[in-house]
């Protein structure tokens, strides 16, 4: 008797994830209706974000936050990928055994630091440095992109490392036994062998970066304009939501839900592609 209840309850728990997922889509879609009907797909290329008088009506377009999200993520990915790969190579093929464990833990601690701490540190310590090297205000697309890169590096490195570690020792030894150098073994054997995991880690990190909020909120400037230079301030979907969601009403609020829906759809798709096609069963 208890067995059946237990089974049913655990089944219910298992499907909870699924229902929450569906629920999120449903709620977001529902509450974005007003904006969806008013603006349709034009929302995606409209640069204006202007509440009307009395907070009713207005013209809202998601172009700037969407572009900001994509650009900051792009900068982050370009900077993070080579470094993350380098770290993974270091941990799997270069570091002597005694160093691997402490280094790995250090990398994972870097990943555990909350986003808002990256924001604080970035704003007060890193932004001035970017300013002195690149000009601008310190706060802008570039700073946000760089700090975002720092945030996803440990994540990407850890997954890539785990993937590379699945390469059987005998396979590597075979390559050495033919006279390959360490780099050649990595390039011709290890990386092709763990290709799926490596690509998956890159795509997954991209998905994570898209939704990153707090650090970017501190550093991107929160200005509703397209950045002319890479150091100019702009905004992104998570940042716009973080700053303005609570006060928005009516059409503006509906437009916020529209943005949230876009963000959720895109990052969900990206992450799902990474998990389903490349990564198999992983605990990240």
């Amino acid at each position: 008797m208890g067995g059946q209840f237990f089974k049913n309850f655990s089944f219910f728990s298992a499907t909870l994830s699924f229902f929450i997922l569906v629920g999120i889509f449903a709620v977001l879609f529902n509450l974005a209706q007003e904006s969806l009907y008013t603006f349709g797909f034009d929302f995606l290329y409209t640069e204006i974000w202007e509440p009307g008088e009395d907070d009713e009506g207005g013209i809202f377009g998601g172009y700037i936050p969407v572009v900001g999200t994509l650009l900051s993520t792009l900068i982050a990915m370009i900077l993070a990928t080579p470094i993350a790969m380098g770290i993974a190579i270091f941990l799997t093929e270069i570091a002597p055994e005694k160093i691997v464990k402490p280094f790995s833990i250090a990398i994972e601690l870097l990943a555990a630091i909350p986003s808002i701490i990256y924001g604080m540190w970035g704003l007060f310590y890193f932004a001035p440095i970017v300013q002195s090297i690149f000009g601008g205000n310190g706060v802008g697309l570039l700073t946000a992109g760089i700090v975002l890169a720092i945030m996803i590096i440990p994540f990407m490195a850890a997954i890539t490392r785990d993937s590379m570690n699945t390469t059987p020792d005998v396979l590597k030894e075979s390559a050495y036994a033919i006279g390959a150098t360490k780099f050649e073994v990595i390039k011709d054997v290890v990386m092709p062998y763990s290709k799926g995991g490596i690509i998956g880690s890159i795509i997954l990190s991209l998905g994570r970066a898209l939704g990153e909020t707090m650090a970017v909120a501190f550093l991107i400037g929160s200005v509703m304009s397209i950045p002319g230079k890479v150091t100019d301030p702009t905004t992104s979907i998570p940042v716009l939501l973080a700053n303005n969601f609570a006060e928005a009403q009516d059409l503006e609020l509906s437009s916020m839900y529209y943005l949230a829906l876009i963000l959720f759809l895109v990052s969900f798709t990206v992450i799902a592609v990474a998990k389903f096609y490349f990564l198999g069963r992983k605990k990240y």
Partner: protein
Amino acid sequence: MNRLLLNKVVLVLSTISAFIGIGFLFWILITLSYKGIASIQLSTFTNDLVGGGIRNLIVGQFTMALIATVVAVPLGVLAGIYLREYGHGSKFASLIRTLSDVMTSAPSIVIGVFVFALMVDPVGSFNGWAGIVALAIMMIPIIIGTTDNMLALGLLKLREAGIALGGSKHKIIVQIVLKAAKVGVTTGILLAFARIIGETAPLLFTSANNQFFTMDLTDQFPSLTVSIYNLATYPDAESRELAWAASFILTVIVLVINLLGRYFTRNKH
């Protein structure tokens, strides 16, 4: 030989990358400690936000995280058990497992928006329960994942032994398998807890923040993380200092729990 040179170059670059990574870690931790410790006074811990301290914030953040844990753990563990034990090999279980995995990386701000729509808007005010639900939604998939993984790690033998001894299926599962996985599951819970206690975005428009000490979850609820976000943007130096103090404390909490979790996995055998 060109090959050897290329080899050396790549290896050196990789090593440099690793040290860059570690370098950032130390840079952040050192700055944080320096600024944070300088900003801490006794009042930081004895006063609430309204009085320039963070007492209520720490209590508030922990309260919400703990209750979220109490909600999320049974659901997550049971779901993990289901996936591994009953749904073993079924396409449905596989789908749920991957979907759950995807949810662990979902943008936390969207979850905040979602819970706002469900629990804040209808009620008309921010409330602690909404914050708890948002945190729980983030936690459940993480715990499902770690429970699932732990159970998968060669507990087949234990399970078979249990069945040989008699006993209904669910009793065996709960007793034997879970006991053996206890360490792994505890680690999973600790790591999930460390993850959500540092979260800000899901709380921004669910539980928001509260300067006063309160345990009333139907009202806006104090949060350490949301406070940091607010304080950092105020122009006055005191707020800035408090933000650093809070950041330092938060980081210490998160890293300690994280290290604890890893410490337990070390002693597994």
